[in-house]
């Protein structure tokens, strides 16, 4: 036994296994055991005032040169592209920067001082200078009991088990393909992804890739691990080779397309996207990629032109409404909005005209109207709004039509502070009576309310509504005359 232990000591300290060993400084298992012991001894003395600790915050502390919590929040809000756009769309809380400085009155040191009241327990800081109190800290050293006879040929199963517990293990001796595969299968059966990946790293270094790929094809779990590992380490070339080998052509395409996210320069990105068009995407996706390329191409042209226009200061619209951001890399709908805002009247021939965009990208009518409406309403161009929603039939009659439903039209107009005269024209067109009444009441379109109640022959509501209109106004007069008319007509019954 002691002989074996000496061997093991030698093993740990020798460096000849360096190439494929993993560090063995701490041993979770023994830590846990020690922690358990420590905890059992702590149980009686841990008192309830732990909760006070929760009020302690980093934020008050002058932390080095950085303002602590601000950055903490900043990182979380920029972590995802989805989230990022979310906030930009509904310009929400911009108040992160204004975190208060709460200088905390609690600190852990106070707590420890408090603990000193208990005569039996030395404070934690004391504990560390005092070897006798070592129990309070989770022990990092391996206890003797953990030593097993060291032998150079652990079975694949034992090797995996040792690795699962974070111990050093040499994989060098697994040289035959058979041994390597048994080791891999054991790792998979052990359910620890960390170990599976470790074995794969070893296999990747010691097997020709075709051999490795071939074996992984029938080992899906291991395969997932290798793919994830290659993604994380950025070994794109090997990843693509693997996916090609597996005939996962769509993933090859997507994986390459994904790289565009990391290209900053728009010209380079455009070139890159052009190259993506030839990749083996599904028939459906290929048109999306094509559109992505075309969109960026357009945006580059529009951006160059508009920046020039804006700088020159000749164009009124750009002077009145300077651009807040560049249009590059924006979604199609945002681009359409932009073009409806700045280039509404342009002929279809120009790249920046809304009609051109609509045609090129086959934007559905509904989407187009919605976006154009929002853009023109923002400019308070009410005639444009009117024209947009007016259709002529073959007899030359005009009719108001909204593919999105008039309640949406009203909502958009209202959000852009449309005057009541404009608003009520469209409130009137809302089909559903209840919605119409709601909207009309909400936005004080008195005429619409009155007319609707008149059509419903609802005397009571009409009377009730009288108190909502201004005394002596035209509306009040209208209600009065309606009411007296109604009285007369009901008299006949």
């Amino acid at each position, binding site marked *: 036994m002691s002989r074996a232990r000496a061997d093991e000591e030698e093993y740990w300290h020798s460096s000849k296994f360096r190439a494929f060993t993993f560090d063995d400084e701490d041993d979770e298992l023994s830590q846990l055991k020690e922690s358990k012991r420590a905890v059992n001894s702590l149980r009686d003395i841990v008192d309830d005032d732990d909760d006070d600790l*929760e009020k302690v915050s980093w934020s008050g502390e002058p932390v080095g040169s950085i303002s602590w919590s601000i950055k903490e929040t900043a990182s979380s809000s920029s972590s995802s592209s989805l989230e990022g756009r979310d906030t930009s769309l509904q310009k929400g809380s911009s108040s992160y920067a204004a975190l208060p400085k709460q200088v905390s009155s609690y600190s852990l040191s106070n707590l420890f001082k408090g603990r000193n009241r208990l005569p039996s327990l030395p404070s934690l800081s004391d504990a560390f200078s005092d070897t006798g109190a070592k129990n309070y800290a989770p022990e990092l050293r391996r206890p003797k009991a953990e030593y097993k006879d060291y032998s150079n040929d652990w079975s694949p199963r034992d090797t995996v088990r040792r690795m699962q517990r974070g111990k050093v293990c040499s994989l060098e001796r697994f040289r035959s393909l058979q041994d390597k595969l048994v080791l891999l299968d054991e790792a998979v059966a052990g359910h620890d992804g960390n170990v599976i990946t470790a074995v794969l790293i070893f296999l990747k270094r010691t097997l020709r890739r075709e051999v490795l790929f071939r074996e992984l094809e029938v080992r899906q779990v291991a395969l997932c691990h290798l793919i994830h590992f290659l993604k994380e380490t950025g070994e794109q070339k090997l990843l693509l080779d693997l996916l090609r080998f597996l005939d996962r052509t769509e993933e090859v395409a997507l994986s390459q397309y994904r790289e565009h996210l990391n290209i900053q320069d728009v010209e380079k990105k455009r070139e890159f996207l052009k190259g993506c068009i030839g990749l083996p995407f599904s028939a459906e996706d290929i048109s999306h990629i094509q559109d992505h390329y075309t969109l960026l191409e357009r945006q580059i042209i529009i951006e160059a032109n508009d920046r020039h226009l804006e700088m020159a200061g000749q164009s009124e619209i750009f002077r009145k409404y300077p651009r807040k951001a560049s249009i590059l890399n924006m979604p199609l709908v945002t681009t359409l909005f932009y073009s409806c805002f700045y280039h509404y009247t342009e002929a279809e021939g120009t790249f920046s005209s809304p009609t051109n965009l609509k045609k090129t990208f086959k934007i559905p009518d509904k989407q187009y109207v919605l976006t154009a409406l929002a853009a023109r309403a923002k400019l308070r161009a009410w005639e444009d709004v009117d024209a947009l929603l007016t259709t002529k039939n073959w007899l030359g009659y005009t009719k108001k039509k909204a593919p999105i439903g008039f309640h949406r039209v009203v909502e958009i107009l209202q959000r852009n502070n449309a005057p009541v005269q404009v608003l009520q024209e469209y409130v009137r067109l809302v089909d559903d009576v209840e919605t119409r009444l709601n909207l009309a009441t909400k936005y004080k379109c008195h005429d619409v309310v009155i007319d609707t109640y008149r059509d419903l022959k609802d005397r009571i509501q009409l009377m009730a509504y009288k108190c909502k209109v201004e005394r002596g106004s035209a509306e009040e007069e209208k209600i009065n005359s309606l009411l007296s008319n109604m009285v007369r007509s009901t008299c006949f019954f």
Partner: protein
Amino acid sequence: MASTARRDAPEPPDFGILKRLARDQLIYLLEQLPGRKDLFIEPDLMSPLDRIANVSVLKQHEVDKLYRVENRPAPSSSDQLCFLVRPRVRTMRYIADVVNADKMSGRSRKYKIIFSPQKFYACEMVLEEEGVFGDVTCDEWSFYLLPLDEDIISMELPEFFRDYFLEGDHRWINSVARALQLLNSLYGPFSRAYGIGRCAKMSYELWRDLEEESESDGQGRKPEIGNIFLMDRDMDYVTALCSQVVYEGLVDDTFRIKCGSVDFGPEVTSSDKSIKVLLNAQDKIFSQIRNEHFSSVFGFLSQKSRNLQAQYDRRQGMDIKQMKNFVSQELKGLKQEHRLLSLHIGACESIMKKKTKQDFQEMIKVEHALLEGFDIRESASFIEEHIDRQVSPIESLRLMCLLSITENGLIPKDYRSLKTQYLQSYGPEHLLTFHNLKHIGLLTEQTAGETLTAVESRVSKLVTDRAAGKITDAFNSLAKKSNFRAISKKLSLIPRVDGEYNLKMPRDMAYVFSGAYTPLSCKIIEQVLERRGWQGLEEVVRLLNGSEFAMADGGLEEGAGGDAQRVVLAVFLGGCTFSEIAALRFLGKERGCRFIFLTTAITSSARMMEAMAEAKA
């Protein structure tokens, strides 16, 4: 349902020890690098760290300056650098860059990396490749468990969801097993274990494996937790995708609760600053409304304010002595209550404002229709309009997923048109998001004649359970069918209600979704606990296609465990939502048992959707 002999639920065990353990180990590790040092902290670890220690404790152990790990050169001038990080390749490269830059300029310092909760071999490989292995020392901070509240423990591993369910990486299973081992040693032994899902099964097996070789020095100790239930998130995506309407869930959806605390902005505090508020059982107001349906929160808050006013008003008739008593004894409490009340009232107002702007009512209506399976066309066009109007990209995606998962995939025409419009509205790069969602099974396209027969599901289960996992992709996608409608019918998840569902006095867990739907995950737990196993649930298990299991420790029989038998550790692998927590808390109250939640992270529909997006490298 409410039994006549209703027992009170046992008190939850004291989880303060977990914090103390983590803190002590961190201090110990810091002491391993004696002398003054600068500490670099992974952003993800800051909030958890905040909950167990503070700056002064770090300062006490000779931490000089604090920095966050980010992609910028480190300005530190200290001779010793310590990095407190998650085991990630990206972070290793950053550290290697720091070390290599020092080497280039001929500067020598000491470097220490503390991995939390554990070190990965892949990280060491990167250090080796970058030529800094040996220049840095590595340690592990086994900080697996952060108690967020008296009944919630979080592993704070939001990446678990993507790593396991999307990438198929088993790297965190060992962490889960060790977390279970720690809990079992402190609060166990657990005498009954149930679970459903592949990850649940693997975690359970690895944990048992760890237990077997550790000496059982817990024998004879009185257990505080008697049952454990493990569940994979993919057993029930529907619940996680629904809009939350209990107060805590709404606060999370609206403001994002982070590590048990929330930043209330000026719109809530009605001042010009934000306030960071800890939301837990200690908050006297919050603890009374957190599990309530939002509609009953207002009434409660206004009642509270009136009471508070009355208590303040008592001052009027007081003489000097009474006044002195009042000021010294009651005033502080009243002031505290006042502060909390005004915060939560502010939060409610802000939630209302935001929700009315978003057509929340209409959205909830659509969700309920999807859950019940009627008016599918109307729902699809609602979603379409949502996308066209460029309302929140996350919400649009969430609704599409809900449609897909309740309908076993979108019909191809819808899939194509919604996807196209989504890409047009929110950006073409979301092509990658769609691919991920398809892969994970959240947003799929129906293919002709695709129904999963009993035989197929049995075969695929057999095959996928095999160690080598030799399954084809086709099988995989087949196995990923949600079968929601059939499961919902089988477990009667949609309560039949005559008249109005009383949300103030709920009669079942469905109240967390306005009485329209009982969360599937919670229903499964309820059923299994009631039956003490899976008997009678075979059909549900088949439809879920999960690897169910139930184990009982022979030694302990009925009554032997005492209160511990009425304490259940509910483990959610891949995250759990506040709605699920509320539902199970309700169930616990009804049945006289106590649920303790162990989750890889608190999740929500938004977090799940965000995890599916591709970010820049």
